[in-house]
């Protein structure tokens, strides 16, 4: 039976791990390679690096981080943040990333998703969707949550599937950094709209939120940062908790 995945996410800036509250107020909290290895040894099903300020700054540090991590961690590694072009994707894959997540570039030019999934295969193309509720719908935001594209999240998700995305990483901007739990309404609506796996992200404050993401949000995988990163819970604890709630996990 296919297991639901738990994916700890490390926000990386200038080669160092940080985790922001609503993308601001950053705290430095360690070496990404070491952190990734701790997660992988602890049973993380995948590791995710998000290069949070990459859209504006020098990106070369992330290549080095990915290269060093991939020599130590033998679970899948997803890297996102500031990925603009086929060339960026190629570089990250060559450094040892297994999947690359594309956010702003996919909104601005959906051909990037089409071309990259053709060139590298859908299995390594994740489209990251940052969505914020507006009335009874959700709109897509870009540039780390700063710009509203006005696009409808559900329609956009479907379009990305059609363009060849292998997975969707859906973050609720309303919940990100709040520790109030995933926006399970958003997750389940997108999950029922597409036939590719959905990774839920944004807002995890406790282990029940992970359960909700899978049971109520119908996510295939749940991503979280701060609850793992600050030692509140280990990945192993999270898995045991999910298991106790009847969710299939790899233990």
């Amino acid at each position, binding site marked *: *039976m296919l297991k639901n*995945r738990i994916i700890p996410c490390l926000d990386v800036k200038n080669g160092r791990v940080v985790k922001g509250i609503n993308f601001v107020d950053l705290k430095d909290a360690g070496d990404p390679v070491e952190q990734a290895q701790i997660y992988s040894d602890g049973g993380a099903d995948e590791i995710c690096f998000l290069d949070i300020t990459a859209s504006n700054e020098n990106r070369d540090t992330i290549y080095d981080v990915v290269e060093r991590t*991939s020599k130590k961690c*033998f*679970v899948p590694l997803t890297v996102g943040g500031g990925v603009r072009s086929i060339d960026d994707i190629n570089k990250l*894959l060559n450094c040892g990333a297994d999947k690359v997540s594309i956010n702003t570039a996919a909104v601005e030019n959906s051909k990037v998703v089409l071309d990259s999934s053709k060139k*590298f295969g859908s299995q390594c193309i994740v489209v990251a969707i940052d969505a914020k509720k507006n009335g009874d719908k959700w709109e897509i935001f870009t540039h780390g949550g700063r710009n509203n594209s006005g696009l409808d999240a559900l329609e956009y998700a479907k379009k990305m599937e059609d363009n060849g995305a292998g*997975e969707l990483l859906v973050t609720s901007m309303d919940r990100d950094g709040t520790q109030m739990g995933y926006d399970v309404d958003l997750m389940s609506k997108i999950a029922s709209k597409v036939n590719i796996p959905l990774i839920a992200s944004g807002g995890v404050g406790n282990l029940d939120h992970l359960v909700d993401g899978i049971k109520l949000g119908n996510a295939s995988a749940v991503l979280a940062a701060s609850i793992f990163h600050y030692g509140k819970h280990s990945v192993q604890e999270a898995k045991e908790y999910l298991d106790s709630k009847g969710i299939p996990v*790899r233990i």
Partner: protein
Amino acid sequence: MKVTIVDYNSGNISSVINSFKEVAKDKVNIEVTADLNKIKSSDKIVLPGQGSFKSCVDALNKINGLTEALHEFAINNKKPLFGICVGLQMFADIGYEETETKGLGWISGKVSKIDNQNGKYKLPHIGWNQINIVKQSKIFKNIENNSHMYFVHSYEFIPEDKNVISATTDYSSNIVCSVETENIFGTQFHPEKSDKLGLKIIDNFINI
């Protein structure tokens, strides 16, 4: 001993390289090349494969003499070869991804899309699934039945002769996830991404 990972521009093979180097340490020489002479002089070959069946077959055929060299290695000389993911799928006679494409024809069978049962099963089949070992295999030495391995694929290999199947996994149906003949091995899952157990499989192959 020399183990060669065939670098035929089949997409991202850095994880395969990293994992084999990690297991080999200094004991075994890991080469990454498409050089025909180096392939011929290898003791073992690893055939990775990412992207579509068609793109991988096309990439193999683009390198003059490569499929012939691999054929000589695995079929005529019966030396150990390990196919991973699309590397395994290419053993088949034919694949149906994108368009009908001829495979290497080493193990009779076809590669078709997994039946998602009208959307009941998400595709690609991504994540950790348990393998059901159905016959003793050299690469599964010290690997327990029902171990978790990491999968990413939408197509499955359906061999004609069921005796080649060494493991299956349950997703929509019993999907073939490992095959073995006398000297040809293949896994649909990614041992290079399957943590310590995956590295053990790689170690088993190196030690055959």
